[in-house]
């Protein structure tokens, strides 16, 4: 099976006055169609920078991102637009990902309008999406500040899937939520993935959460993918000391 997303030797270093911080170092991996791939690592390891590199929000220093076998050039507006129609990102801070002065409904309609949907059709679909995300049609009229963190994240997921992307990148989408809301959002994500068969790149520091969702897991430390494999192997037979530490911490913090 050919890869949907193929990342080859992706690197990014940030520079401050005195220091160079290599945030992403020579990262390579691929995501197959319909696959749920997990990316786990502690804060500051480069997970979010990698997500931003994949979306072209931060330019990479070197390396390539290919989609459907075609290498991407984020400077090419037409290629970029086509890519965004198939790959969407959901951020950690859902409230900040919405225009504060636009209603939730109009924010959800925006990607559909961008990709040639009529206003009437976008409006109708936005209501269906709100319902699918466990919200109500009334939420369309509300503004981001009137929603709870969990409701905002549901709306963000609804917006991301509105244009039926083939890959959804989730960057710590539940880490600002309490455990009950987190469980609800994960259920929603799994339901939508089963319905649409889209691929997921699920990024989280919480390896317990990652193994609940993903068949395959990448472990990132200091900008490098230090270990990767089927979830079963990563959890039961971690090869790297760091992975063992992550799994042990997760196990201790979730044991009943």
């Amino acid at each position, binding site marked *: 099976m050919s890869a949907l997303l193929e990342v080859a030797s992706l690197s990014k270093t940030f520079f401050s006055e005195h220091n160079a911080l290599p945030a992403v170092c020579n990262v390579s991996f691929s995501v197959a169609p319909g696959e749920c791939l997990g990316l786990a690592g*502690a*804060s*500051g390891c480069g997970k979010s920078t990698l997500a931003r590199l994949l979306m072209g929000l931060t330019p990479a220093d070197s390396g390539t991102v290919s989609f459907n076998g075609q290498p991407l050039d984020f400077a090419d507006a037409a290629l970029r637009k086509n890519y965004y129609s198939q790959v969407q990102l959901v951020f950690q801070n859902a409230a900040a990902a919405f225009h504060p002065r636009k209603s939730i409904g109009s924010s959800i309609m925006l990607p559909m309008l961008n990709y040639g949907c009529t206003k009437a059709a976008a409006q109708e679909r936005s209501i269906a999406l709100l319902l699918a995300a466990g919200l109500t049609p009334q939420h369309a009229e509300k503004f981001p500040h009137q929603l*709870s*963190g969990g409701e905002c994240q549901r709306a963000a997921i609804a917006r991301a899937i509105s244009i039926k992307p083939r890959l959804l990148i989730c960057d710590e989408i539940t*880490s*600002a939520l*309490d*455990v*009950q*809301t*987190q*469980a609800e959002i*994960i259920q929603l994500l799994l339901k939508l993935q089963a319905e649409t068969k889209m691929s997921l790149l699920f990024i989280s*520091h*919480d*390896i*317990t*959460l990652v*193994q*609940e969702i993903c068949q395959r897991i990448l472990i990132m430390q200091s900008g490098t993918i230090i270990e990767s494999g089927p*979830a*079963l192997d990563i*959890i*039961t037979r971690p090869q790297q000391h760091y992975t063992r*530490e*992550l799994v042990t*911490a*997760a*196990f*201790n*913090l*979730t*044991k*009943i």
Partner: protein
Amino acid sequence: MNKQQPLLQINNLSLAYGAKEILKAVQLTVCPGEILGIVGSSGGGKSTLLKTLTGLLPANAVITGGEILWQGRSLLSGGRLNSSGLLGRKLSMIFQDPTASLYPLQTIGSQICTMLQAQGQFDTAASLQSAAQVLAGLDFSKPQAILNSYPFQLSGGMNQRVCIAMALLLKPELLLADEPTSGLDLLTQQKILRHLLQLKTDHHTALIVVSHNISALAQIADTIAVLRQGEIIESGPAQTILNRPQHDYTRKLIEAIPHFRKEFLL
């Protein structure tokens, strides 16, 4: 029965923000050296309860009933809380957002000195020395560098450990911790919990730890109280609450914790 006198007793405490009831007849006891965990979803009144004890309530908050006793002595007079004599040396608090609870324009070392000055210790060199010792005990390999840093130069987990260090320097009898690990990654969470437990084992400090994560809480708590919409619906020894929850809401809180897939645990 010869029981230890409780450090803090909250009897039937009710509180409202204006007309809105936030806490309803809350009943809690903390003994010296005990860790009490309070668990519940967002908006359940957990933070309000801690704010009540430290006098950080908003102006429209009214204590509508009940009593708060510190070592048997009432802290309430005329519906107002008078805990100012306790703050610092006896009663201290660490917050969910440690970076916001540190002063941004002062180095860590300098704000530790300010804090100790407020408690009557004016020897700066001695303050910095004891601060460095405490920081070293909290797994900071270069305590001097931390003392010279500003909060924005440290990560959230590092700032939280700095706040724990500050609490340690005051050696309070009771430390309140409001969601001390949320927003931190798992490795850091584990580290913070271990340090909180260390406060109890090394200094016999009592703690009230508030969290939405019941299994993280159960790692350190002796007793757990489940707070739902301002009411304690269940409380008891941590392992009993975790293994034999009586209330549906408690079961839901436990089920919400992500679990390792069964086939991974065989």
